[in-house]
């Protein structure tokens, strides 16, 4: 009897499997007829995932906007692959290269070495790298990679101007994610902006050591606000969310403090207590949109190091300016012109910053 039951069970499973398999095959063949040799653009997220409210999300918005304007479909025409661990970067990038995507973006400098390796293995593939420059053994940019970088120092300078003109205590904080050359561009640009309009201002700068530690961000913000700072520039990804939490708590208790957001317009994140003074936006979406457009037109900018600054609208202050005074806004516009025409060169490293300070006196 036992055997009989098993036999029935097996028969059931086989029937079910064949029925379902029928469905499966139907769908795949249907899908493949739709896939003609049309343009395809893909991106691989880092471990933050596509909904990180920051960098990856912004990149994906760039691709979806491009898809909308060019009649491409999400999931086939433009597509993202998520990475759950660092060792996923390489297989994910490879998958898209093997599927003949016309361009594949690696989002973030953490993918630099993987992109470099894959670019050399697949000379015909077109790749894009955000926030780093892909080079070969001789430190020359790889011919089939478009390296996309941003002049974060310029945008940070402008929010620094806003901070310098808004502060009442003349004490301003900067919280960075991980102490690296990239984040130093944010810090020094910001400090230069503050000092230019408000030489008396004192600036506290500290690094949390991680982009995904809101608790640390909050602890550092607590210290800085207690020391008397009334504005903090949180340039730390998800860690910055802790700064928002602390600022909201203080504002709720009747002590008004401000946060300056980063990467995206973080005005909504400061609500309902309204603690976002302004944000330094980094238009990853725009950069991706532009490069994809060029690629589609057959002008893939391979081997080039693209720098998106104020001039290209690649960085800047957030469109929401409800909390910024008229005076600050007009001087932001003045300095923007000065940076674009080259009369101010914003420092990126500690050395350049010290030098910049001497020119102010």
């Amino acid at each position, binding site marked *: 009897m036992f055997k009989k039951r098993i036999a029935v069970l097996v028969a059931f499973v086989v029937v079910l499997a064949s029925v379902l398999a029928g469905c499966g095959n139907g769908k*795949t063949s249907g899908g493949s007829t739709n896939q003609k040799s049309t343009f395809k653009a893909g991106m691989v997220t880092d471990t933050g995932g596509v909904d990180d409210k920051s960098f990856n999300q912004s990149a994906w918005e760039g691709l979806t906007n491009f898809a909308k304007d060019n009649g491409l479909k999400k999931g086939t025409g433009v597509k993202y692959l998520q990475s759950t661990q660092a060792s996923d970067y*390489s297989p994910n990038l490879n998958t898209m290269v*093997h599927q003949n995507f016309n361009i594949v973006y690696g989002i973030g*400098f953490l993918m630099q070495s993987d992109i470099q390796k894959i670019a050399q293995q697949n000379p015909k593939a077109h790749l894009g790298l955000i926030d*780093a420059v892909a080079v070969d053994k001789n430190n020359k940019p790889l011919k089939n990679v478009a390296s996309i970088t941003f002049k974060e120092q310029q945008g940070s300078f402008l929010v620094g101007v806003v901070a310098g003109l808004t502060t009442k205590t003349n004490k301003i904080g900067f919280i960075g994610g*991980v102490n690296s050359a990239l984040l130093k561009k944010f810090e020094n640009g910001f400090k230069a902006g503050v000092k230019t309009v408000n030489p008396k201002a004192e600036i506290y700068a500290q690094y949390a050591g991680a982009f995904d530690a809101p608790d640390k961000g909050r602890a550092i913000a607590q210290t800085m606000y207690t020391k008397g700072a009334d504005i903090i520039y949180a340039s730390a990804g998800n860690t910055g969310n802790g700064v928002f939490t602390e600022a909201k708590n203080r504002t709720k208790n009747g002590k008004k403090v401000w946060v300056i957001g980063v990467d995206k317009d973080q005005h909504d994140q400061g609500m309902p207590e309204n603690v976002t003074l302004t944000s330094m936006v980094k238009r990853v979406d725009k950069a991706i949109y532009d490069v994809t457009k060029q690629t589609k037109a057959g002008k893939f900018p391979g081997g080039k190091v693209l720098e998106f600054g104020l001039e290209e609208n690649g960085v800047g202050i957030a469109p929401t300016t409800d909390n910024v005074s008229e005076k600050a806004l007009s001087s932001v516009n003045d300095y923007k012109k000065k940076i674009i025409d080259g009369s101010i060169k914003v420092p990126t490293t500690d050395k350049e910053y010290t030098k910049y300070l001497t020119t102010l006196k």
Partner: protein
Amino acid sequence: MKVNAFLKKINWMTLLIPVISVVLGLVCGAVIMFAIGYNPLLAYQSIIESIFLQPYYGGETIRAMIPLVLAGLAVAFAFRTGLFNIGVEGQLMVGWFASVACAIIFGHLPKFILLPMSVVAGGAAGALWGFIPGLLKARFKVHEVISTIMMNYIALYTTAYLIKNFLYTEGERTPTIPQAASLSSAFLANLTQGSRLHWGFVVAIIAVTAMWFMLWKTTKGYELRAVGFSPDASEYAGMNVGGNIILSLTISGIFAGLAGAMEGLGTYQYMTINSAFTGIGFNGIAVALLGLNTPVGVTLAGALFAGLQTGGMTMQSNAGVPVELIQIIIALIIFFVGSGYVIKWAADRLKRKGHKS
């Protein structure tokens, strides 16, 4: 005749539980996919096709299998002595760091010295990270679950500190190790369309054999297992229980450290500053559990998990199913293994009813 006798010796019931668990896990995963509106058949089809028909993903699967199997062996070995080594993750990280650091510092040495030396460095660092909780347990009765978890955090932040201050290069990582210390091979890469498959699989095979030999073919192994079955009885029989606990966690640490060395010398060729755990060590617990803490079982379970993880990425690209679903399936499989008692009970009932009617 001999084969028959061997087949009779196997306890089919215990073998059945992991197999049923895997099937149930996959079925439940399919139901979830179906409910959210994805095509489960297409999803599983893309996993199987990519792993078995496309050399690239086949190579990547074996690559992902190497650290998983070693981490699984680490957990299983300690478990045989009745110890829960939750610290595989930390032991893996110090092993990873030590192997990479050794390769960079002694980069001028020839390959036949440097490569084995770096692998050994990884194992030794892992051993140290296992020895400390072992000592605490044997001398002061500190529960190894707590101490090994804490050691994970110490490892995470210590390695980050050391990289930051001594071996830092742009991109939040150490420099790339010299070719003389690398396990990667152009031959294996060409064979698998440029995957990152490396010679580490040889180390994994040796480790699997070593665990089997140590536990079942040596007197010391017999002692270790005896302590696992009953510490009191072993002590009564004149065995040094404390010493065996330290030894077991140390050897477990060696396996975990080797897993880290494989990542450092094989997959990545460098170490990044990790802000979170790699997850390999924790997956190792699942691998050991599913593999019934036997060397062969761990190998098979490691292959399954590596296949699911690698195939999960093609599932994402072909069927549009989010990668997170693979984690759910893995969790479900573990859940069913954990509730193995229920499966056993159901099977027994099915059998008994069959006899009655």
